[in-house]
């Protein structure tokens, strides 16, 4: 068990998968000579050569389409789209082709590909480069959407995604790349579709994913130490398939839930979680499910405004307090 960054975990997993399976190859903008905009692919071109680490033109629809074709013919492409904001250019390839080929053509061809792409705000990259669009993909049957929050899950879920026979949107987070955590050594694969209980608790459930799961965990630890509030943190890890049982089991225990999500509130991930909870644990709810999400505006460039628009620990703590107060938690 080594303590490494999320970035390092991704890099090491790409490398070990390239070593493990000759059908695996990488493609994307600036991933080879430039070693990736976020340096995830550093050194891989040198080690594996241009056939397996391919720089592409700035043409997302084209190289995603190429990857789909390669996957249909038996390779296991791992595409890097520089940020999730640019994946919109490849939306037709992802949604209308990658997600549907297997079922539309009677299962004749699988599409075992991964699209790695980071999302998230908070980097002062302004409105068009700071979005959380994961829910667009999570809406589409035929895709899998994973959203790792920790270096260990970055490793385990990336390995699982590359070995999966379905197209997987592997959504990273810009603000997580430098975070550190313990990562198991050796071949480590995390099953897609299982949420993780990051911290057990009995008073309230916080459901989150990606960077917000890390924020939720910090908040939960602090509330426990400072106020004796025992919050359980559920990290979804995968938005599709969604592990509803783990969410429901937690809410049945705590009777209260708050969702922390970095996407916009309306029609967001939290809406699906809240619906899941009321359908599956209605009789266990002692308070309405609350959502803490981004302000519904294009994210501002200005740092103070950007911070104000994004959900954060303070907002989460406030809503947790309000939810607990609504159930007379403090008597």
């Amino acid at each position: 068990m080594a303590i490494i960054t999320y970035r390092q975990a991704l890099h090491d997993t790409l490398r070990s998968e390239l070593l493990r399976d000759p059908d695996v190859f990488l493609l994307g903008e600036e991933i080879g000579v430039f070693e990736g905009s976020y340096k995830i692919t550093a050194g891989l071109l040198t080690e594996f050569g241009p056939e397996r680490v391919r720089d592409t033109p700035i043409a997302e629809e084209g190289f995603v389409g190429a990857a789909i074709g390669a996957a249909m013919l038996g390779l296991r492409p791992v595409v890097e789209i520089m940020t999730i904001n640019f994946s919109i250019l490849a939306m037709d390839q992802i949604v209308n082709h990658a997600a549907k080929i297997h079922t539309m053509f009677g299962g004749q061809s699988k599409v075992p590909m991964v699209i790695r792409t980071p999302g998230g705000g908070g980097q002062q990259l302004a409105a068009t480069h700071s979005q959380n669009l994961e829910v667009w993909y999570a809406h589409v049957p035929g895709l899998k959407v994973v959203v790792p929050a920790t270096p260990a899950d970055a490793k385990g879920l990336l390995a699982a995604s590359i070995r999966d026979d379905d197209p997987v949107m592997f959504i990273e987070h810009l603000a997580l790349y430098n975070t550190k955590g313990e990562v198991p050594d050796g071949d480590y694969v995390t099953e897609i579709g299982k949420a993780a209980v990051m911290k057990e608790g009995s008073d309230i459930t916080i459901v989150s994913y990606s960077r917000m799961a890390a924020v939720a965990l910090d908040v939960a630890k602090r509330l426990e130490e400072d106020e004796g509030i025992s919050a359980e943190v559920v990290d979804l890890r995968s938005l599709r398939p969604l592990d509803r049982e783990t969410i429901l089991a937690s809410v049945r225990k705590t009777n209260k839930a708050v969702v922390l999500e970095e996407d916009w509130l309306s029609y967001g991930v939290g809406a699906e979680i809240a619906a899941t909870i009321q359908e599956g644990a209605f009789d266990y709810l002692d308070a309405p499910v609350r959502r803490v999400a981004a302000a519904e505006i294009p994210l501002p460039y200005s740092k103070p405004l950007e911070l104000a628009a994004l959900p954060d620990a303070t907002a989460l703590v406030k809503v947790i307090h309000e939810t607990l107060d609504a159930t007379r938690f403090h008597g």
Partner: protein
Amino acid sequence: MPEVFMPRLSDTMQEGTVSTWTKNVGDRVEKGDVLAEIETDKATMELEAYDAGVLERIVVDAGKTVPIGEVIAVIGDGIGLGAGGGAAPAKAKKSAAAAPAAASAQPAQAPAPDSVQAATAPPQPASTPAAGGAAATAVKASPLARSIARDAGLDLSTVRGSGPGGRIVRADVEAAAAASRTTGSAATAARPAASALPADVSAGPDVEEVRLNNVRRITARRLVESMQQAPHFYVTRVVDADALVSARASINAGLAALAGDATPTKISVNDLVVKAVATALRAHPEVNVAYTGDKLLRHRRVHIGVAVALPDGLIVPVIRDADTLTVTQISTQTRDLAARARAGKLTPDEFTGSTFSISNLGMFGVDQFTAVINPPEAAILAVGATKQEPVVRDGAIVVGHTMRVTLSVDHRALDGATAAKFLADLTALLENPLATLA
């Protein structure tokens, strides 16, 4: 000028009786003040004022029964006072009895159908068009509170909500369920007065006002009901407790020896009392009964309620089938139930269903007291302290241990001689505790 209507306090309620007016004509009334107590088919509930003003007229006198929706009083600005009284407003509040659909067609700014609201129903935000006749079904409660109430057989319209907007939350139903099983194990001298307490005491610089929580509120109501409805009589005996004290000592010594290095179970005098009472009840099924008005229900099982004091009330967790348990089992269960009762962690089935209760104030050095019966049980045993006292034994005064036990009995269910026989057998068991272990 807001009229006060007979509220609909439960789904089955057709009419209600004004049991008491707690405000008099001319009294200043604030929103939320208790105006009256209304007796329904299910319970007696407080009626809270929904409007502030002056109680100008009482239309339905205490003791009278009227259909729901009928005007029972008028709250105004006080100008109408003494203006000849006039005829009581004859019109009934139609919508109160009408189908909710009819009322929901009303614009939101229409006068709220509930010009008064049951103390038990959560206040509606003014902007919500409250559905007429839906006072009971419109109770705001969390789904969890509803499911707990369902399991505990609790009528939510009798529970006051403390959540946002008066929403009933788990804490409220648990408190209500606890209190509905609460006994008068407090000394009768300390029993709460009825809510119609004359207002010659009021909060001020020298008097602090403490709001009643649900446990205290329901405890008070239940105790009043018990004392008012069950004619209590009391039978006391002095128990020679020498054998009890030595049995406890030798059992604990034995348990300690058996436990070795582990923490030994320790039993208390109260555990032996619970066992003896359960044994005596098995032999006296006529005491293990409930009086229901037209019949007696004789319990085939012996479930002993043990009163536990909470900081803000009482709760009576239940030792089920106590007659079949060993003293050690009784001890372990009692300790666990009491600890969780204090932590507020009891589930409703753990404090409901007792067939006989015991209240023990011995640990506070109380020699003797009488307890209020926990309805619908027929009796409760009040246990005093075990003390060293001079006793007469074989014609000589010697130092012995005594304990006074007092049985409070519902005379509707049991008579003096029956109670005396039960107490005699119980005393014999307490004086020969080994017999209960046999």
